[in-house]
């Protein structure tokens, strides 16, 4: 099969001042998100020793924080905040299958026969 060939003009090896400045502003953001994640980790540990009434509520609180942290990592560090549609499409299908997987696990505890 014929591969589409790469454009003949080599990409710019240097980097413009504009790009460097653009990345530089991102760098501060990355560090701030890192600090936010570290704070959330400490918060997760602290809140796990608070009695929210039942173990289930502690699980809900910890999982909500973990989901927030994962969202930060995915959106900022993995650049999903602004990514190409091709990647969103791949992930959308993955998320649907993952939800299906956990739904099946939940279904395992469903017992229609009352006894």
């Amino acid at each position, binding site marked *: 099969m014929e*591969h*589409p*060939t*790469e*454009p003949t003009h*080599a*990409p710019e*090896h*240097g*980097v413009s001042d504009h*790009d*460097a400045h653009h*990345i*530089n502003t*991102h*760098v501060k953001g*990355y*560090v701030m*998100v*890192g600090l936010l*994640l*570290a704070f959330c*980790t*400490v918060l*997760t*540990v602290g809140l*796990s*020793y608070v*009695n929210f009434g039942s*173990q289930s509520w*502690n*699980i809900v609180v*910890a*999982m909500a*924080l*973990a989901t927030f*942290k*994962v969202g930060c*990592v*995915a959106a900022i*560090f*993995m650049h999903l905040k602004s990514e*190409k*549609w*091709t*990647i969103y499409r*791949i*992930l959308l*299908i*993955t*998320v649907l*299958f*993952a939800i299906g*997987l*956990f739904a*099946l*696990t939940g279904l*395992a*505890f469903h017992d229609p026969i009352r006894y």
Partner: protein
Amino acid sequence: MEIPYTVTARPDTGLYNAKIGIWLFLASEVMLFGGLFSAYVFLRVGALPGYWPHGLLNVPVGTMNTLLLIGSSVTVVLAWASLKMRQFMQYKIWMAITILCGALFLIVKLTYEWPAKFHHFGAYIKTEDLAKYEKYLGNNYLEAKGLPPRVEITGDLDEAKQTDTTYVIKPDAIYTDPTNPAMDRPTFWPRPISDDPAKEIVVQKSDVDYASMFYPRHSAYFQVYFLITGLHGLHVLGGLIVFTYFWLPVGSKLYKQNPEHLANRIEVVGLFWHFVDLVWIFVFPLFYLL
């Protein structure tokens, strides 16, 4: 054959090829870990009261490991940004810190956390014999408070004193003071093991359902713990190998040929590394805290 579109974007996808490749791989990884986490949910929800252990892992060490992984996620993205800004020495420094953080994570896991489990002993008492060990388990107290019962005695096995019919256990602090309200819930600092010979617990082997060191065979909890943290550890190792490869002269050679190519490869391995971090963000509360 030269792989096309390693540097510039393919016109139809708008992405360089490796980026689609890594995202497809990460999608399959989501399903792999998703399957294991759903096994965790299945085993945990199905566990009888008292049979899902709490507070057996070292929380300060786990917290430190979490911070190490988060730190390395920041430094790997800074390493990539340095390449984008064509600051090669900065890249080398950030990458070195990333490798150190990841290596430290693995060293702590393999030389401290796991071996500590292999030396810890637990004996599950038969339901009908639980009353004999009431003064160590405090189940009447727990029942009155609406807390799940204790069905196991854990601690260090004193092998020298063990006989054909008995286990002699230097117990975890919880069994020497079971009705102390401070023992109701796990604590941040691990409770010490009693070294006081007067507090040793002699358990009749005939009263024991089964006993084991904290190996995978000990419980469903340790089965998923070792499986998930083991697989996660292998991912950390894989990331470290690739990071080291690009930190060595291979990286500088590639940088001289085409810095954008190296930046893209670091972005791709960085995406993998963030995923490894992301899995740990769920592992830490699920196994250490809840």
